[in-house]
């Protein structure tokens, strides 16, 4: 099979047309139905001028329709750009200006805000509403951009345009240190290399039912969506209430007979602590995969005791590299609470540990992790400078000359060859699996006219990795709730600080910079 993601559904539909492809609540789409809808929507996109190399943005809650939209964008030769449906429209507008979508695919629940999000995108040729009543009201067209409903149009499906595995398949926007989201450009080959490895490594087959927990703008979702299609398996969307309530989640996994689960650890921690599991339930769940942050070993061990029949694996990789290392978790002896490794490189990928001096680290010696191979991104969208900094051949003598991604993660190799994550080189943190640049939040706070100084610091928390605290010096009386609300208008909810502390001034280093170490270590009063 060619290394392209746009051929997967057609192949599955040809071999198992009646198998469930997508389960979304009570609705089930078979592969034949999915293929038919993808083809029609791709025809509609082509009719509005979408051609190979274009971008199509997705602005709707995760649903069967959003998966149809994603595949239709690919089928039309375009890349899909999944927008965080809960992010403030102003932030999404910055993304739309950057990636210039030709079409915005949306849902009835979000359609009313299309103009705020994409109205300023000069390339926009149409807004297409993918769900809702056929006779429901549509938002108004503006500036010559028509708003139409996918369901009422029956454009014929053309054959997929010719494509190369190196073509852009999706753009994932992530927190940037200067307050502007940056687009990570991934090709068909990048996604396919990871998915193909994962399907083989974990033996995903047509019998499997994969959960889909992560939102589409989060790179974990590429496993759920594309591994299911690659294996002609079924993907079952996790309903929002199951993400919040652990007992509902346990019930969902049982009732939907989920066999492969993949999510951030914090969800699994909640399932462990509050899922009502006594041990031995969920017999169909054979594989539990997690990524995005460190899974506290004490909770992982407990979950492994509760699900003794399941295999567990830690997957690691920034969005820029896809998953690039993995660790199958062996039985964890009681009392051993040090973090589990991120493991070793997946097939076809090379992981190098490079010291500050630019040499290859000896076993045990800390260094930055560099990743080279087919899963590594094309670069940051329209940002050659940042791309050049992140992607360069490894510096050590005799290194292979292909570009490697500098992860910014400090690691060391254990005696048995497994890699251990030690920390970050910069001000990036993880919270609930989300990757957050502290500077991005500070930029949002500084936009408030009454904020004189601020610093955002992580507060370690073993259930969610980090909570976020903002230390602020303000002029005049500024209420915490007002500042939180202000922030929520600029950054996604998961980046809004959990706590605010107001001070007259922030502590400074001898050079006059804000003393983050002091704030972090809580050494100052």
């Amino acid at each position, binding site marked *: 099979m060619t290394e392209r993601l746009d051929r997967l559904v057609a192949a599955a539909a040809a071999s198992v047309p009646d198998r469930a492809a997508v389960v979304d609540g009570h609705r089930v789409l078979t592969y034949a139905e999915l293929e038919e809808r993808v083809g029609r929507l791709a025809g509609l996109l082509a009719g509005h001028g979408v051609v190979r190399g274009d971008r199509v943005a997705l602005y709707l809650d995760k649903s069967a329709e959003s998966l149809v939209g994603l595949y239709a964008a690919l089928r039309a030769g375009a890349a899909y750009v999944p927008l965080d449906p809960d992010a403030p429209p102003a932030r999404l507008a910055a993304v739309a200006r950057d990636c210039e979508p030709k079409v915005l695919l949306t849902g009835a629940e979000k359609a009313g805000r299309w103009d705020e999000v994409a109205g300023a995108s000069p390339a926009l040729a149409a807004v297409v509403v993918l769900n809702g009543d056929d006779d429901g009201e549509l938002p108004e067209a503006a500036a010559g951009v028509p708003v139409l409903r996918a369901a009422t149009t029956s454009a014929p499906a053309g054959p997929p345009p010719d494509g190369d595995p190196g073509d852009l398949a999706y753009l994932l926007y992530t927190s940037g240190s200067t307050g502007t989201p940056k687009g990570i450009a991934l090709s068909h080959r990048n996604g396919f290399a990871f998915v193909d490895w994962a399907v083989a490594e974990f033996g995903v087959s047509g019998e499997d039912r994969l959960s889909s927990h992560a939102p589409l703008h989060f790179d974990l979702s590429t496993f759920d969506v594309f591994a299911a299609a690659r294996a002609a398996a079924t993907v079952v969307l996790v309903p929002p*209430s199951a993400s*919040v*309530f652990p007992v*509902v989640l346990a019930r969902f996994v049982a009732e939907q007979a989920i066999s492969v689960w993949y999510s951030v650890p914090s969800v699994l921690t909640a399932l462990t602590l509050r899922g009502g599991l006594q041990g031995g339930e969920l017999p169909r769940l054979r594989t539990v995969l997690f990524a995005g942050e460190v899974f506290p070993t004490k909770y992982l061990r407990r979950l492994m005791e509760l699900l003794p029949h399941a295999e567990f694996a830690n997957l690691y990789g920034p969005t820029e590299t896809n998953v690039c290392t993995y660790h199958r978790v062996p039985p964890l002896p009681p009392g051993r609470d040090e973090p589990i490794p991120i493991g070793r490189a997946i097939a076809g990928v090379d992981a190098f540990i490079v010291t500050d001096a630019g040499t290859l680290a000896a076993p045990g010696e800390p260094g930055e992790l560099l990743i080279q191979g087919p899963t590594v991104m094309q670069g940051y969208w329209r940002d050659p400078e940042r791309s050049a900094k992140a992607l360069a051949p490894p510096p050590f003598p005799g290194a292979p000359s292909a570009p490697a991604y500098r992860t910014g993660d400090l690691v060391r190799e254990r005696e048995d060859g497994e890699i251990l994550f030690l920390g970050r080189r910069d001000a990036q943190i993880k919270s609930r699996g989300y990757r957050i640049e502290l500077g991005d939040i500070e930029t949002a706070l500084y936009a408030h006219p009454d904020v004189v100084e601020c610093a955002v610091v992580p507060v370690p928390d073993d*259930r969610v990795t980090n909570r976020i605290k903002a230390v602020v010096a303000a002029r005049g009386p500024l209420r915490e709730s007002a500042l*939180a*609300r202000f922030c929520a208008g600029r950054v996604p*909810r998961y980046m*809004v600080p959990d706590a605010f502390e107001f001070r007259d001034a922030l502590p400074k280093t001898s050079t006059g910079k804000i003393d983050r170490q002091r704030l972090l270590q809580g050494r100052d009063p």
Partner: protein
Amino acid sequence: MTTEDRIRTFVLDELNFDGDPSELTPDFPLIDRHVVDSLGIMQMVTFLEEELGVAVADDDVVPEHFESVRRIAELVEARRGARR
């Protein structure tokens, strides 16, 4: 302070409530508006157990009991009643 007031104060101070405090009525939809999210639910349960002193069973942590300040207060009263 009544139980409902204490819960309301907790929502305002600790959870992701970014509206104006006057909007937080007893029936404000906490789940639909993402005030009680995956992190908030854990904080809320810890608060109910440690600050209000009620035992919350895993099976109590379901949408019906957490959709509003009023419903959470009713859960607390019910569990207190059950203990007596």
